[in-house]
């Protein structure tokens, strides 16, 4: 537990001493590494964690650099802006504000892009901004702006490499700490769900569009800060360092370092910067000639690295450092999260009336009606292709009926997105398990409590959310114990057996404190013992007043558990009643046994 602190401490001490030990040139290199790492860190968040590939970060670096360059060198600023040119610290504020505004504008356009459209969108605005820098005469055109002043700090002027070094690395370390904190929080779990888990996250009440915007803006701000430092270190800006080629190089650094890891940013920036330097120093004397050999060897080396380390270099390096992930501790004294008041047993919770859903000429659901009451378990069964999943989608609000209506707690479901429905108290599992395989079971379940807590990005980043976080984790742990996965709490969710993953989904749904539980084939893949335990749990929930709707194939499981059964075939309800009645119903028997597939 203390080992990681030691390693970190040693690392920080080393950083502090660098200007004293290393030659000034290596300090210069470290300055560049720090600047690059800051941009790469944004990409770790955006691309590695959030799954949004951006080629355009260099343009945001340019925005930061150009804002400060233009303001601090201008001699004839309009009166209302004159205050900004007086100190680089003020231009940093202006730059960050400007970048935030631009990022929100660009983001609100391009983040709507899905799949492969997004990376191209980032190339598009990356190139546009780059050429704008070059064509605007007030920004020095292609030739650039020189004479940018050095940064002053508490009476010092940071005009030498060894001085600005401390500022750059302080910025970077703060950025890393903030990012690290952010990822380890309620908002962070929402962000980590963006890559491959958006549908699930939305169903748990996460506003994923907002989360995408959040990381987009954070990445842009990091790039902007890097640009600000760059301008005052270099004292000169022109468009070439902010082109798409460089934007691609930042992505390159993040991926080579390890796009999924905060430390990957430093590793990637460091390896690429130092490697280029070494190649430049050594290749000419090795080959006896200078030329384009550096780029050739560099490109091929990078391919080799990626062949050997797809996840980037950090996961490999991490094994060499005596640091293991710290287990989360569950604070038993944390105050429980607030609970909703469950409706009284017997109260009508869910009501579907004459639901019909057509896809073109195909009628998937025809005049389906059903209702679920508090303290009751209803099963929806039927042979393959009967339209159960379509019905499930109508109820959970994923799809909208062609005619008819679904009402939840008396309010129509149609017209509400998954988030609002989740907020109203409906919580679901998925037929095809949707969880985040590399996250621990505990954190997967904690996503369920998203709507029961409200700490935002800033409080997460600065650790003002710990009390609430403890409450969330305690609740998640409680649900995990309840479903019987306590011994797997700290394992990666992806390492569980399929049946256990389904149980995890139930714990996650429970973590949302719902009054209606929608379970899509919860028993599939479970062993007998596990099924019995699941049945036990569902009975207990029923006794607490929970309303449950189960879509299930496993007849034994259903018949011994539920209160009522609705049977579907060819999109229609063919029977409804108590389990015993259904088992005797001739139409049902015909559907299950007689029908030729």
């Amino acid at each position, binding site marked *: 537990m203390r080992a990681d602190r030691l390693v970190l401490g040693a690392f920080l001490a080393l950083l502090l001493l660098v200007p004293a030990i290393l030659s000034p040139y290596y300090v*210069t290199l470290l300055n560049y590494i720090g600047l690059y790492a800051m941009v790469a860190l944004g990409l770790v968040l955006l691309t590695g964690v959030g799954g949004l590939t951006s080629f355009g970060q260099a343009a945001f670096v340019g925005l930061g650099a150009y804002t400060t360059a233009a303001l601090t060198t201008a001699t004839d600023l309009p009166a209302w802006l004159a205050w900004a040119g007086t100190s680089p610290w003020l231009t940093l504020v202006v730059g960050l504000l400007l970048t935030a505004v631009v990022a929100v504008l660009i983001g609100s356009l391009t983040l709507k892009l899905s799949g492969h459209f997004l990376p191209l969108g980032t190339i598009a605005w990356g190139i546009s901004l780059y050429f704008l820098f070059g064509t605007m005469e007030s920004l020095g055109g292609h030739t650039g702006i020189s004479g940018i002043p050095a940064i002053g700090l508490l009476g010092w002027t940071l005009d030498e490499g060894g001085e600005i070094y401390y500022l750059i690395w302080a910025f970077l370390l703060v950025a890393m700490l903030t990012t690290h904190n952010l990822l380890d929080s309620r908002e962070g779990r929402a962000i980590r769900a963006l890559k491959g888990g958006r549908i699930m996250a939305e169903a748990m009440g996460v506003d994923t569009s907002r989360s995408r915007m959040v990381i987009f803006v954070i990445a842009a701000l990091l790039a902007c800060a890097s640009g600000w430092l760059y301008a005052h270190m*270099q004292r000169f800006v*022109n468009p070439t360092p902010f082109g798409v080629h460089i934007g691609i190089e930042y992505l390159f650094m993040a991926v080579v370092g390890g796009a999924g890891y905060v430390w990957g940013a430093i590793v990637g920036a460091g390896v690429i910067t130092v490697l280029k330097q070494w190649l430049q120093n050594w290749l000419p004397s090795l080959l006896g000639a200078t030329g384009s050999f550096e780029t050739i060897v560099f490109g091929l080396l990078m391919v080799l690295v990626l062949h050997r380390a797809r996840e980037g270099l950090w996961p490999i390096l991490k094994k060499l450092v005596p640091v293991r992930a710290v287990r989360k501790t569950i604070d038993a004294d944390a105050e429980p999260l607030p609970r909703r008041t469950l409706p009284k047993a017997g109260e009508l919770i869910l009501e579907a009336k004459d639901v019909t859903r057509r896809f073109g000429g195909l009628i998937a659901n025809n005049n389906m009606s059903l209702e679920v009451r508090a303290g009751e378990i209803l099963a929806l069964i039927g042979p393959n292709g009967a339209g159960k999943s379509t019905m499930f989608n109508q109820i959970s609000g994923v799809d909208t009926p062609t005619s008819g209506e679904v009402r939840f707690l008396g309010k129509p479901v149609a017209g509400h997105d998954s988030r609002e429905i989740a907020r109203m108290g409906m919580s679901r599992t998925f037929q095809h398990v949707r969880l985040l395989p590399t996250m621990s079971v505990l954190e997967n379940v904690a996503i369920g409590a998203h709507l029961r807590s409200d700490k935002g990005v800033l409080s997460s980043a600065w650790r003002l959310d710990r009390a609430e976080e403890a409450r969330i984790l305690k609740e998640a742990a409680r649900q995990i114990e309840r479903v019987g996965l306590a011994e797997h709490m700290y394992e990666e969710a992806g390492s569980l057996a399929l049946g256990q993953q389904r149980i995890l989904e139930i714990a996650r749904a429970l973590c949302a404190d719902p009054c209606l539980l929608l379970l899509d084939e919860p028993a599939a893949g479970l062993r007998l013992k596990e099924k019995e335990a699941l049945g036990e749990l569902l009975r207990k929930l029923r006794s607490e007043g929970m309303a449950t709707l189960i879509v299930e194939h496993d007849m034994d499981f259903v018949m011994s558990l539920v209160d009522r059964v609705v049977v579907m075939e060819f999109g229609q309800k063919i029977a409804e009643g108590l389990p015993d009645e259904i088992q005797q119903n001739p139409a049902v028997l015909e559907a299950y046994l007689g029908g030729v597939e």
Partner: protein
Amino acid sequence: MKLRNTLLAALGLAFAATTAQAEIKVGVVLSATGPAASLGIPEKNTISLLPTTIGGEKVSYIVLDDASDTTTAVKNARKLTVEDGVDVIIGSTTSPASLAMVDVAAETKTPMISMAASARIVAPMDDKKRWVFKTPQNDQQMASAIIGHMSANNVKRVSFIGFANAYGEGWYEQFKKLAEAKGIEVAASERFNPADTSVTGQALKLMSVKPDAVFIAGSGTPSALPQKTLRERGYKGPIYQTHGVANNDFLRICGKDCEGTLLPVGPVQMARSLPDSHPVKASALAYVEKYEAANGAGSVSSFGAYAWDAGVLLEAAVPSALKTVKPGSAEFRAALRDALEGVKEVAGATGIYSMSAEDHLGLDDRSRVMIEIRNGTWSLLK
């Protein structure tokens, strides 16, 4: 075996470089790759022709490529000054990179000789630019030659097309200023990227204002595309280019479409045809012969000459700096700077350099001549 020997030799060389006694170290930053590679490569080829002893001291050169990127140029300049402790920097190829390196030169108090065109590199003179010199003619000097020719030939309306980069931009600024002073109207101003595969749109726009002449400000073979397109579209009037195109590749690519093209060049391009009385003929010819012996007949270009002239300046300045101090010290660098500033009437391949405290270029009108492409080759205009 062979590889091993090479490796050992390389290691030996590396050690030799670090352990040798007092020698003059020259750091070179140039754009051997990236968009400015066609400028940087002749410069790189020239560096190996520069003198290896000056004033009895050995001279060693460390050449670094900045990939046409300012960040890398500055990084390299820092390495050369801080790590290698060079006595002087030559570089870089492009104006933005040179401008960015000015701060490093001033901070480390190392004299620097730029090979880029923009006048902004050495003017207006200030505390930083004290350390910076340059060898290429200013855009303004070259532009005035073109403007002179235009007004002599009754050109009243000109269409301008230039690279969408610092090169095209520098030319446009100077050209427009001088043209307007002479009463010549710049009726259309277009841009193109060196890598563009088509400039039809720009060409049509240039022609649509019915100009008396078209001026193309680009360097190397990319400059041929607008000219070919203009001719293809039926433009018959005179076309002016800059000295940036003066190499054989341009003639080869442009072919018959470039007959009659007018451009100003440094004397180096025309060294053989200059009258013997021309003050730069001998010094230019010396470079041309040396370069072509190493790289093939007709391979010479103005850009290599800028690197050569950096060597010429050093050859002129180093001996006087050596009188007082040994190389490898701050005092030597300061003495070298002073000596460079004191260079008078030194003939290089580009022109005659006479520096002063205010003028760190020191070239005059002897540094350019107007020429025409005739019968597929360069010929002097009378």
